[in-house]
């Protein structure tokens, strides 16, 4: 379960001064549910997810992740979370197995459990053929599988995906999408950010539309369609976001 309660994140920018990247964001994501955070570039998706994963600390507000407060118990939150994004790269000089082992150990797994989990995950994701290959020698698909194995090794209850398919080819992106679905089937709480409408339509139980750090609309796809009297998600998105949309400035 994820419960974001009035999350605020301010950054300081030399030119613009204080910039509010996340502005009073409140939502709930339940186990066995996929929550899609939909927004344009620079809307605040990544910052929101980084706050939930305790990679960043909120300026105000808080969130409960699997019952742990992101401000007071960040380490416990991270133990309960599997975080995957295109920015979470792999260590090039470690093999696929060493990479997963490293994160298993950092998550406090003992060697017996670690070996068992690795064997299980590597078989399930069909990774045995490249388990001893260095990460810098892996194909993009193999790298993604290794990243997935890395997020699964401690069997987290909450999965956070930040634009996980960004820049990937169709086949590799499909692996990720299937994996996200599997997480839901296993009863995990899943939140993922994207700006790809088709992914939202395929996967999400609940959609939150974010712009300028504000969560502007939230609901199931059907609820949003009924509320905005549009069938096409892109049209709904534009209708909601357009009043606040400012082209992204590189910070």
């Amino acid at each position: 379960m994820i419960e974001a309660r009035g999350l605020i994140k301010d950054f300081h920018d030399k030119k613009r001064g204080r910039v509010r990247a996340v502005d009073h964001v409140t939502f709930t994501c339940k186990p066995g549910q996929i929550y899609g955070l939909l927004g344009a570039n620079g809307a605040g998706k990544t910052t929101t997810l980084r706050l939930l994963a305790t990679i960043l600390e909120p300026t105000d507000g808080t969130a409960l992740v699997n019952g742990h407060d992101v401000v007071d118990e960040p380490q416990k939150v991270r133990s309960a979370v599997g975080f995957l994004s295109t920015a979470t790269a792999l260590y090039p000089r470690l093999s696929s197995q060493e990479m997963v082992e490293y994160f298993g150990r950092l998550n406090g797994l003992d060697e017996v459990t670690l070996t068992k989990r690795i064997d299980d995950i590597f078989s399930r994701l069909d990774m045995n053929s490249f388990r001893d290959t260095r990460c810098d020698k892996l194909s993009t698909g193999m790298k993604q599988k290794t990243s997935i194995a890395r997020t699964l090794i401690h069997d987290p209850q909450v999965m956070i995906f930040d634009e996980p398919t960004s820049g990937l080819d169709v086949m590799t992106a499909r692996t990720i999408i299937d994996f996200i679905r599997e997480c839901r089937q296993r009863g995990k709480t899943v939140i993922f950010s994207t700006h790809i409408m088709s992914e939202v339509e395929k996967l999400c139980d609940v959609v939150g539309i974010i712009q300028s750090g504000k969560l502007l609309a939230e609901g199931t796809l059907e609820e949003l369609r009924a509320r905005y009297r549009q069938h096409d998600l892109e049209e709904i998105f534009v209708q909601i976001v357009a009043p606040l949309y400012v082209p992204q400035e590189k910070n």
Partner: protein
Amino acid sequence: MNLRNIGVVYRKELREALRDRRTLISSLLVPLILFPLLTAGLGAAVSALIGKAKEEVPAIMILGGEDSPEILAELRDSPKVKIVPSKPDWKNEIINKDIRAAVEIPPGLQDDIAHQKSATVLIHNYSGDLKSELATSNVQETLQKYRDRIVHENLVAQHLPDTALKPFDIKDNNVAPPEKVGGAAFGGLIGYMVILLCLTGSMYPAMDLTAGEKERGTMETILSSPIARVDLVFGKFFLVLTAALVTAALSVTSMGVSFAVLEHAHAFDQAGPDAQQMQLQIHFTTVLSIFIMVLPVAVLFAAGLMTVALFAKSYKEAQSYISPLMFVVIIPAVAAMLPIDLTAKLALVPILNASLLCKELVTGTYHWNFIAIIFFSTCVYAAVALFLAVKMFQREDVLFRS
């Protein structure tokens, strides 16, 4: 602080470092090769070059002197110079290194000598050119012998003993043992080399583990794991420290072995009596003392470099921040080679203090009060640097600088 997690990070970083060619070169190969090269290689090369220059009989010209056959005969008979026919553009010949020197004999020199009038013989040379200076010294030696003979003959003619002109001799006598003389000459250089190699050994891993991690995109990956940032910093710090210490240990050992080999090969004996007075004996205790004193310096470098490098977005940017730091280290390390004695105030100046102390340790001098001040002050600086590194890892604006 969780020691298990620090160990997990350290082992992983060590594994990666051992697979990284650049780290292996800067931490292992450079110290293993540099000292033997400097001591044996460079020493042999320099002595071979000087020997070759000494072996060469320099070509010189004589300008004038037609009315002074005696001095001409002295120069022509000298096996140390080769007389070539004089030319009007003798200056260019010297500058172009066709000849090494030109001796200008004033008109009527022999008459002046006979009438005991003062005269000057000029030796034109190429100042700074080793071969020209050697030629000058050969000419001076020949002329000096001739002058001494004339003086002796004049004294005999006046029924005076040689001591009339030289009532007493002046000689210097070294009382310091050879290893102290050698230490005084080379000690500053050794401290400088060890400190510099300690810095270069930790430089690459410090950048790789901070800015390199940002550049490769693994910083966010590691920050999403449950490890506390302080444990992460310490795990990384211990690896950088290991690299610095391995580099320092290898350089000190390599230095000790190189000098021991040279001593065993009697290389100093062959270099002449001056060099025999300057034997450099580096005992195991000296090596150990240098290593202990370099330890807090290595901690200071490891933590300081990590703090600076973490601020950078990329490896390249980290290099541009760290390169100027090289001067901050080199200048005080070089200053230790100057004739500066360790004082209580200097014992507080980081890097310079350790460098000066290394010089003393090599000469076998142990000023325990200074050793204590230097060790503890450097420990304090190192602790501050480590504290800053931990603080830096907790700053979001640094970790996610874009």
